């Protein structure tokens, strides 16, 4: 139960949603765009997040699109993760999505909610970072499309009143060889330790990580190190570790040393698998 009151709005169009946000702002009300809402409700219950209103985006048709158009896969922000898994248009995304929380929770957790969330894992963003996807966002200035690399820097850098509508991915990336491994310290359903996702593009491996630092990321420096075919696997992995872009997490789910130990093994597993493929 939320201790505070909320106003609830469910606009049918992008324009109505943005208008609603700014009308509320004029009344000094803090509104949050609401998709699956699981994180908003769990953080709200603990008073770690406060708002005066939520704007539910699940009736906006663009946010529910999941289809191919002009050789691109359009994935709407309000799609539930189980829907994405069941349709399986994007196998790497299905693989990553399937590892988020549990099946019933994934009926409610949405793509947009996961990638824009406050909880630092945000694993569903990894496939899009690897595939150089584009992001469609809307705000006061209307709708715009930009490269994910421009907008995502650890988290989506959205301006006030902006929200994520869709992620667009070139179809050619979707069929490329991939591997994605999520490691947990305990059991199959425990909290995640790290997730490493990789795709092979033109004989070069790309890597993206979640749970290693306090934000998900893709690092070209780490990729350069890991793709040095003339060096031993051990050296490649060590040099990649030297280029981790921020402090490695050291928390109750796993110490820094343990995370690095798991990272080494996971990278070795993925590289061996993908370099073995033609």
């Amino acid at each position: 139960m939320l201790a505070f009151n909320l106003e609830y709005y469910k606009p049918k169009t992008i324009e109505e949603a943005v208008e609603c946000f700014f009308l509320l702002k004029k009344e000094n009300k803090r509104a949050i765009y609401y998709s699956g809402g699981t994180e908003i409700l769990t953080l709200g219950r603990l008073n770690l997040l406060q708002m005066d209103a939520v704007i539910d985006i699940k009736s906006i048709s663009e946010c529910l699109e999941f289809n191919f158009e002009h050789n691109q896969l359009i994935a709407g922000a309000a799609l539930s993760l189980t829907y994405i898994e069941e349709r399986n248009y994007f196998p790497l995304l299905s693989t990553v999505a399937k590892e988020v929380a549990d099946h019933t929770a994934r009926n409610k957790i949405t793509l947009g909610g996961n990638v824009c969330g406050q909880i630092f894992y945000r694993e569903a963003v990894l496939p899009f970072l690897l595939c150089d996807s584009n992001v469609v966002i809307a705000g006061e200035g209307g709708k715009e499309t930009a490269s994910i690399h421009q907008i995502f820097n650890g988290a989506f850098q959205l301006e006030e009143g902006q929200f994520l509508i869709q992620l667009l991915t070139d179809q050619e990336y979707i069929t490329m060889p991939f591997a994605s491994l999520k490691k947990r310290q305990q059991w199959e359903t425990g909290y995640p330790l790290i997730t490493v996702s990789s795709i092979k593009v033109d004989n070069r491996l790309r890597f993206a990580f979640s749970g290693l630092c306090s934000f998900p990321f893709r690092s070209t420096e780490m990729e350069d190190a890991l793709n040095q075919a003339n060096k031993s696997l051990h050296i490649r992995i060590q040099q990649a570790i030297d280029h981790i872009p921020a402090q490695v997490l050291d928390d109750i789910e796993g110490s820094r040393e343990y995370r690095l130990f798991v990272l080494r093994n996971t990278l070795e597993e993925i590289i061996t698998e993908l370099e073995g493929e033609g």
Partner: protein
Amino acid sequence: MTEKIAIPLNVNGEIREVVIRPADTLLDVLRNELSLTGAKPGCLNGDCGACSVIVGGTVYKSCIMLAVEAIDSKITTIEGLKNSPIQEAFIKHFAFQCGYCTPGFIINIQALLEKHSNPTYETIKEWLSSNICRCTSYEEIEGAVFSVVEKSSDE
């Protein structure tokens, strides 16, 4: 100022009018406004599955859903599943001890069987990992599920 609002909810085949705060979770509304106390408050954090209900044919944890999100959908709670085959199988297989988790398990299994009449072991495991039983009746629960799956695939 946020007013309470009156909304209709279609629960177990009946339209019920409730006066709620938009901030109320579906779990709170079912229990406190409609006296449907079968869905249980466990973790209230989306982790345990004790509060599971079916909304529009999909199983959700009602502690992480606002009641207003369920307007226009058919809601099924454990009270709406009287004498279902899975409920009978739970009794036959002694698939509970304290019973606190039982409504959540039964609802989830019901939703699973509505979607997959003959689910694989992997699918059953994936779906049921959403529910936690503190009394660890897992083996008996598995027995109950398999007995219903076998029966429906024989038919």
